[in-house]
């Protein structure tokens, strides 16, 4: 009997490692190693002919200097757009998440389903639809023009606001869901207790609801900010040459110009800036709360 017990204990010591091994090996090869390839490429020089380019790894840091000097505008624009989009997502998502969590009653699941539903349409097709909505001859431009919010000849499409609007729309779901999850966890009795203790509605909100929804706010902002700062579709479809983001440059350099070292260096810069932001955030909230 003792032998059986010890052998099963032995097995359970290796078992977890056997279970995590396939996933970790896979992610090691196809998630971690690619970043080394990317780093290596970013420090290489292009040589050879246009038809047969060769990459030589020679610690060529000039790619990084070029990335900053050539694309400074795009870098600043990218993080400004992503930040504004994140704030807009928070502003729009909070009332909706709040109503679903506290006011929806038995229609909670139905409304949650409705919130998720639009995201079953391919992201690109949704963005094309915004192109139609914001078009110069569309009804939105006409309506805004007639109430004087938009000057005649004024445009929505191809402006910064169109790009920011697209970023907001495409990732707002990642703000609504974590916000809803953290609001839903709040015990309504806590809010009642604050009311019983003569708190005003505003004070109940700022002292009880808002602090308890912080994990959702932080997780949601990360889940919006990161993909928004790496996106190039919204800038491509809804913007103009004046609204290009880092993603547009990386995409073009990699797949059209094929200047791999420059594109890789710019990818590393984007990743580094985001990583610093994420580290500062996770310090405050811990990864468990992120999902």
């Amino acid at each position, binding site marked *: 009997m003792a032998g059986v017990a010890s052998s099963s204990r032995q097995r359970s010591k290796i078992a977890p490692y056997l279970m995590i091994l396939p996933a*970790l090996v896979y992610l090691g090869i196809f998630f971690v190693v690619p970043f080394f390839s990317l780093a290596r490429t970013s420090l290489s020089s292009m040589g050879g002919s246009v038809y047969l380019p060769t990459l030589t790894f020679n610690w060529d840091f000039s790619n990084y200097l070029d990335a900053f000097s050539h694309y400074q505008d795009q870098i600043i624009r990218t993080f400004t757009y992503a930040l504004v989009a994140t704030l807009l997502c928070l502003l729009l998502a909070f009332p909706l998440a709040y109503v679903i969590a506290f006011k929806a009653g038995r229609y909670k699941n139905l409304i949650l389903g409705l919130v998720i539903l639009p995201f079953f349409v391919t992201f690109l097709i949704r963005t094309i639809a915004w192109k139609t909505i914001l*078009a110069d001859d569309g009804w939105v431009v006409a309506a805004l023009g007639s109430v004087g919010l938009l000057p005649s000849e004024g445009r929505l499409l191809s402006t910064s606001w169109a790009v920011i609007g697209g970023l907001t729309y495409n990732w707002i779901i990642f703000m609504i869901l974590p916000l809803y999850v953290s609001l839903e966890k709040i015990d309504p009795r806590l809010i009642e207790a604050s009311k019983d203790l003569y708190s005003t509605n505003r004070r109940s909100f700022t002292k009880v609801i808002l602090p308890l929804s912080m994990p959702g706010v932080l997780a949601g902002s990360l889940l919006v900010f990161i993909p928004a700062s790496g996106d190039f579709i919204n800038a491509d479809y809804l913007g103009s040459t004046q609204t290009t983001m880092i993603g547009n440059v990386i995409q073009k350099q990699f797949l059209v110009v094929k200047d791999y070292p420059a594109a890789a260096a710019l990818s590393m810069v984007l990743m580094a800036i985001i990583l610093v932001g994420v580290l500062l955030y996770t310090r405050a909230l811990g990864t468990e709360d992120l999902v």
Partner: protein
Amino acid sequence: MTTQAMAEVGTTEPTTIKGSPKWGDLILRIVAGLVLLYLFLPIFVIVLFSFNHPQGKFNYSWQGFTLNNWAHPFKYPALTDALKLSINIAAVSTAIAVLFGTLLAIALVRQRFRGRTAVDTFLVLPLTSPEVVIGAALLTLFLDLGWATGYTTIVIAHVAFEISFIAMTVRARMRGFDWTLEDASMDLGAGPARTFFKVTLPLIVPGIIAAAMLSFALSLDDFIITYFVSGSTVTYPLYVNAAVKAAVPPQINVLATAILVISLLLLAVGTLYRRKRIDV
């Protein structure tokens, strides 16, 4: 549909917080309703324009009503092929990722081992890296290895980002389960394998199905990473992107609407099924 749902919301009380002034409550509900409407605005446009009769190459402005597009949804073989290929890639990559991700999730929830927290943190990384960087990094790997990009590299890339999503979804669903059921099974003489297949697996299957559906949807919708590692292979989102540059047939809207309706039906069936189970 949405306005009706919102109107009905107003008549229910169960978890309503007491003491808020009526007008504040009303404004909040109106704002929430408007946000919901905003979420659906492009969807209305997509459905409406599936009935459009475009004159030129692009389906951007309303020209007139027709049922013609719906009568010939598969008029463009390239579009249909791209959709079929995307479904194929989503199915294959999800099958692989479900296997890896579920094993990982079970180990994380059920086992105590050294390095568990490190694995936990590591899993978040693919979700917190911008897609454009993941795509670029994979492309540099494939260039270094000298692999031609195409179907295989797309599947490889999709599995890589799906594993984390699946592991996290399954893990989240496994929290709060009554694991003493496993002990009960062992006490009643079932071996570890029998316990796994008869007790553990049935408990976690709903979580695995939810994770697989999410993974399938993510794969079907992925554009950015796929764009980098696709070579000349054309998936559904890649077809749509090429169409934006050249010509947008209304069949794109028809198929998008069809996918939406199917999702809506699945959602409705799921909700009814759940409600029925609770009632019993």
